[in-house]
């Protein structure tokens, strides 16, 4: 018997028991649909998160105080002088720009309206390093930085909250922690990110922040952002920065009192997390596919029992074990293949709906049904059909013709 014939016979046999076949297929449809949808959600989440990390800027290194991996006896804070030292062309030739920052959570008030936001104390280079732009006014200037000016750039979210508009705000005065600041610019919207909205932010000169908001004295900074010249120099830049900081902080060997993350580190960490999430979601969905497979096995066993006489007859007419095996395996594979194909459609639909819901609730998140997921689901569901069909088919193939013919 050739394959086309086997498929035709399998289809006829499945069609003769439509309700039963449909219900069996439904199990696989739900399983495959769930796998496709979950993988799509996982991949979509991954894309969104890595996308938003990349959106922070390009070729960035993040230098923090402290060390999370080893115990260090003495931790020196990062200072403005550290940041300045990183610009040394000879010790750190691959460093392009440096932006030290201080962070604080503050309350901003305008005419009785108040909002909580995060304040970043920045230097003029921050705009380039983080790809920030203003929609009106100008970014913090060198003069403002040097002069401890009480000026502020406000993010679009803050503008919305306090003023209900995003233009014509330059010259207004807001109060931050009770102190008056003059608005000199409105930041361009960068959209939401996994780390909270990048638009819910106010920026003031670093010097002003140190003097009037954090009041930590001297020139301590919370983080130094380093912009590296070329993408392929990230490792080299990391080594150069580390070397400079080690000598400046006089650290013992192996006891760095700072931590350097590259953007790539964040991306790979995020990828690991979303990868685990995807596997988890896919695994849960896979269980339902497994249950669908057991459904196939169940129905095939019933079918074999019902058709014992037919099997006996076929054997009497010269069917070999292989012929019977193929006949029943074809049936179970057809069930799972149909289930798989419909399931892919269902999964795609679910992913689409999830994307729509996410979009409607303001989260920029697009589930992605990848070709690999479709292939995986197709192969996996057919494999499920084969695997769970194998036992019933084998049982049919090994029936003794004499016994089978006598079966009532």
């Amino acid at each position, binding site marked *: *018997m050739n394959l086309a*014939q086997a498929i035709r016979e399998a289809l*006829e*046999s499945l069609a*003769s028991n439509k309700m039963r076949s449909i219900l069996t297929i439904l199990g696989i449809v739900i399983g495959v649909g769930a796998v496709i949808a979950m993988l799509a959600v996982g991949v979509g989440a991954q894309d969104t998160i890595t996308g938003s990390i990349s959106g922070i800027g390009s070729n960035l290194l993040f230098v923090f105080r402290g060390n999370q991996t080893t115990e260090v006896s003495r931790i020196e804070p990062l200072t403005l002088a550290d940041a300045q030292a990183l610009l040394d062309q000879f010790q750190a030739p691959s460093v392009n720009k440096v932006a030290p920052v201080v962070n604080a959570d503050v309350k901003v008030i305008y005419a009785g309206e108040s909002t909580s936001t995060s304040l970043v104390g920045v230097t003029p280079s921050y705009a380039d390093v983080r790809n920030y732009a203003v929609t009106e006014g100008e970014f913090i200037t060198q003069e403002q930085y040097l002069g401890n000016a009480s000026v502020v750039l406000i993010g679009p979210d803050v503008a919305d909250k306090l003023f209900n508009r995003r233009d014509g705000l330059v010259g207004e005065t807001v109060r931050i922690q009770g102190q008056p600041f003059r608005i000199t610019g409105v930041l361009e919207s960068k959209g939401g990110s996994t780390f909270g909205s990048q638009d819910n932010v106010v920026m003031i000169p670093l010097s002003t922040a140190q003097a009037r908001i954090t009041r930590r004295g001297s020139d301590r900074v919370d983080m130094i952002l380093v912009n590296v010249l070329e993408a392929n120099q990230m490792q080299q830049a990391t080594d150069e920065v580390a070397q400079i900081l080690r000598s400046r902080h006089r650290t013992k060997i192996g006891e760095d009192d700072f931590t350097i993350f590259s953007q790539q580190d964040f991306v790979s960490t995020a990828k690991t997390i979303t990868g685990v999430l995807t596997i988890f979601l896919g695994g849960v969905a896979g269980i339902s596919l497994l249950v669908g497979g057991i459904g196939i096995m169940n129905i095939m066993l019933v079918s074999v029992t019902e058709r014992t*006489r*037919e099997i006996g*007859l*076929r*054997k*009497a*007419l*010269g*069917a*070999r*074990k*292989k*012929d019977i095996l193929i006949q029943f395996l074809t049936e179970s594979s057809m069930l799972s293949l149909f289930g798989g194909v419909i399931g892919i459609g269902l999964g795609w639909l679910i992913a689409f709906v999830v994307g729509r819901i996410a979009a409607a609730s303001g989260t920029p998140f697009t589930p992605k049904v990848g070709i690999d997921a479709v292939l995986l689901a197709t192969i996996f569901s057919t494999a499920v059909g084969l695997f769970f069909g194998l036992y019933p088919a084998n049982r049919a193939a090994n029936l*003794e*013709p*004499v016994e089978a*013919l006598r079966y009532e």
Partner: protein
Amino acid sequence: MPDHVIVTNDLKKIYTMGQMEVHALDGVSFEINRGEVVAIMGPSGSGKSTLMNLLGCLDRPTSGNYLLDGEEVHSLDDDELADIRNRKVGFVFQSFNLLPRATALANVELPMRYAGVDKKERIQRASAALDAVGLGDRMDHKPTELSGGQQQRVAVARALVNNPAILMADEPTGNLDSKSGKEIMELLLELNRKNGTTLIIVTHDQNVASQTRRTIRLRDGLIEEDK
């Protein structure tokens, strides 16, 4: 020298049921010539079904030799037996055993599918076989649309389509009214006369047995009478 299509020598079939050994066949030896018509009779439990299963290569003897059309079949494995059944044995069953969802033509085609005959030749040969049993105009009918006698005719056509060495009929008239039964017997005997097909009929109907030249009577797993 006579042309033996079947030679059995001390054929035994012993079933073990728990502690008990049941000798379904206890040493049976006989020959059947090509073109002969033989009835196998005996009361229930005499071993005639067991003998039919062995002669039809559906089962293997516990001991003894069986030569079918010159081939030793008592020691073949399952798939080799399937092949022998396909090429050398045609079956007609008491309950017809047609595939209910397939047309008469598809039912008759079935043995040729397992023989690997290509589609064109299958349809041609199956149509010829259905013509030969007088159902040339019913090829596209399903078994449920045919009378009992017609269904058994389809079964006969199916049994003959691979030109087997022997045709085993197990109570071929058992499920039919007397008129259709008579017609089926006439058909089988006519096919024997025309094509020289060796015909072995297992029955306990004396009327059927009386139409054959030779009758083998079994009792308690042994040949009681062979004439």
